[in-house]
């Protein structure tokens, strides 16, 4: 059978619905995760229609007002509406996390494929570099990058993306090493298929399936790293609406008891990260029951 992304997707969906009853709890973990993500993505897309005020509007009501009928989640010290800022803030965090995961997966997968397939000295040294970066605390590396780059959406995306490249590299390289010994790859080589064709037509499609789970979990992780960087005051200029920056601002009002300024932005960061992690957990179980060891 010829491989095509659509047929694979169809098969995947069929299998998922079919296995739904069989997997029980894991299935519901996946569904809850997907629902959380879908809800927040819809919120981000429909922000202008959903938000009662502009996130920058500094005259929406009284200063530091607790949640009420007019301001569901209260107002901050600049009289801005917290709910509106949460709704708009979802755009920043989702955009950065997904873009960063796409960037690091593209680079990591490509490098892993090529390195694993060619082997030799380049493969050995590249693996050593990637292993070293992998062992280093990702957040601290991201802090260093964010501190050195001019604040902006692109800078923070790069800072977050850099730390996940080794994850993809290691996964894909390992898979490539074992797949390239398979009989069908040898057959392709025997009939004279060039390396490029073997890599992209024979090995790549077999590797990509396992990266789906990692990608999903990666986005969940990237959400926490993005919010951590902006919470620390790095990576984004103050004009951008962002949950992490709102949390950092709310921290100043914690001693005086304005609980809504930290509860809601932080809760949303957790919820979004939870959505992606649950989706990843569920996917891992259903795509490959042995991946997470039960």
């Amino acid at each position, binding site marked *: 059978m010829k491989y095509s992304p659509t047929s694979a997707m169809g098969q995947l969906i069929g299998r998922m619905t079919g296995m739904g009853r069989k997997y029980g*709890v894991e299935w519901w*973990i996946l569904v809850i995760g997907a629902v959380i993500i879908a809800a927040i993505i819809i919120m981000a897309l429909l922000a202008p229609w959903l938000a009662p005020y502009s996130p920058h509007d500094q005259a929406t009501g009284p200063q530091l007002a607790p949640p009420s009928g007019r301001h569901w989640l209260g107002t901050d010290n600049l009289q801005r509406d917290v709910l509106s800022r949460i709704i708009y803030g979802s755009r920043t965090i989702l955009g950065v996390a997904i873009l960063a995961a796409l960037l690091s997966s593209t680079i990591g997968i490509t490098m892993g494929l090529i390195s694993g397939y060619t082997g030799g000295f380049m493969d050995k040294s590249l693996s*050593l*570099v990637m*292993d*070293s*970066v992998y*062992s*280093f*605390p*990702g*957040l*601290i*590396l991201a*802090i*260093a*990058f964010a*501190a*050195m*780059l*001019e604040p902006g959406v692109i800078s923070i995306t790069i800072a977050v993306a850099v730390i996940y490249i080794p994850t993809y590299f290691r996964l894909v390289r390992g898979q490539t090493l074992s797949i390239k010994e398979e009989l069908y790859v040898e057959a392709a080589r025997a009939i004279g298929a060039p390396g490029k064709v073997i890599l992209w037509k024979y090995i790549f499609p077999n590797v990509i399936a396992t990266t789906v789970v990692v990608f999903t979990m990666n986005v*969940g992780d990237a959400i*926490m790293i993005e*919010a*951590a960087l902006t*919470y*620390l*005051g*790095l990576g984004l200029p103050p004009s951008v609406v962002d949950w992490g920056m709102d*949390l950092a601002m*709310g*921290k100043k009002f*914690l*001693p005086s*008891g304005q*609980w809504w300024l*930290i*509860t809601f932005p*932080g*809760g949303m*960061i*957790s919820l979004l*990260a*939870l959505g992606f*992690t*649950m989706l990843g*957990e569920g996917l891992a179980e259903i795509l490959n029951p042995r991946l*997470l*060891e*039960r």
Partner: protein
Amino acid sequence: MKNLIRYVVTRALLTIPMLLILLTIVFVVVRVMPGDPVSSMLGGHAPQSVIDQKKEELGLNRPLIVQYGDYLMQICRLDFGESMILHQKVLDAIGDKIPATIELTFFGMIITLLVGVPLGAYAADKRRSAQDYAIRLYGIVIYCIPVYWLGLMLQMIFGVWMDILPVAGRTGARVFVSTFEKTGFYTLDTLLVRDFEAFADVMLHLVLPSVTLGLVLSGIFIRLTRANMLDVLKSDYILAAEARGIRHRRVVYKHAILNAFVPILTMMGLQVALLMAGAVLTESTFSWPGMGRLLLERIYLRDYPTIQGIIVIFALIVAFVSLIVDIIYALVDPRVRY
């Protein structure tokens, strides 16, 4: 024994290339990336002649390769130079702060083990029961709660609303650090001078930060312990122990857990990176005067030598801990050899 020594030496030698790579990455990030440390340090409006003079002073106008060689030599001598902003040796600044970070991570790790290992073992014992699912759900949820937010919420609940625990710093206003400070590890220092009032105060200040850090990491340990325990519980010697009539509880929580602990130990080595990252965020949330807070303070001041020094120290810690863990692993498990 000879085998073991060979393993230790090989493993130690393997740390060198890893360290070299990490040091190179730090160098590249701090020195080569866009952004000029000198002009940003001088405020961006300084005349060109002043900038050039300062660059000359700091040796930043030499070829990169020379700077790189110099940088490696400096690190070999553990000399990180002097802060650009404050006239203080970088190593002194780090030395002041490092005990605070170690103390925090140590107690954080204890909380993680106290919460994660028993819960994980219990979940494995009661596999596929409601308790198992509840514990696993807790593991997933706690992993997704950012450590800084958990810290803030705990501060709000226990520090502001209930007002029973301190939320910032290492000591309260009534304790004078100068009366006991010796090693920088305040729990140890206060015990050394037998100042139990100060010891209680230091411990009280440790509660929220270490619980925050410990709880966040406990999710990972629940998963690790559970997975390892499931493997162990399936093995023949567990069945044999049960058959001999040893009580189930004793089999699970003594025989099995000790055998599951070896892989957990290696995983602990891998979690050092997470622990360090968590510590940076916890320190920032709790105004804990450690390495993480120092790093952030110096980033705002654009003090490049100090930033570089701190990241290098983090790299050294990670490399050192993973080396130690691997050696302990080899000592505990005789099958591990090169």
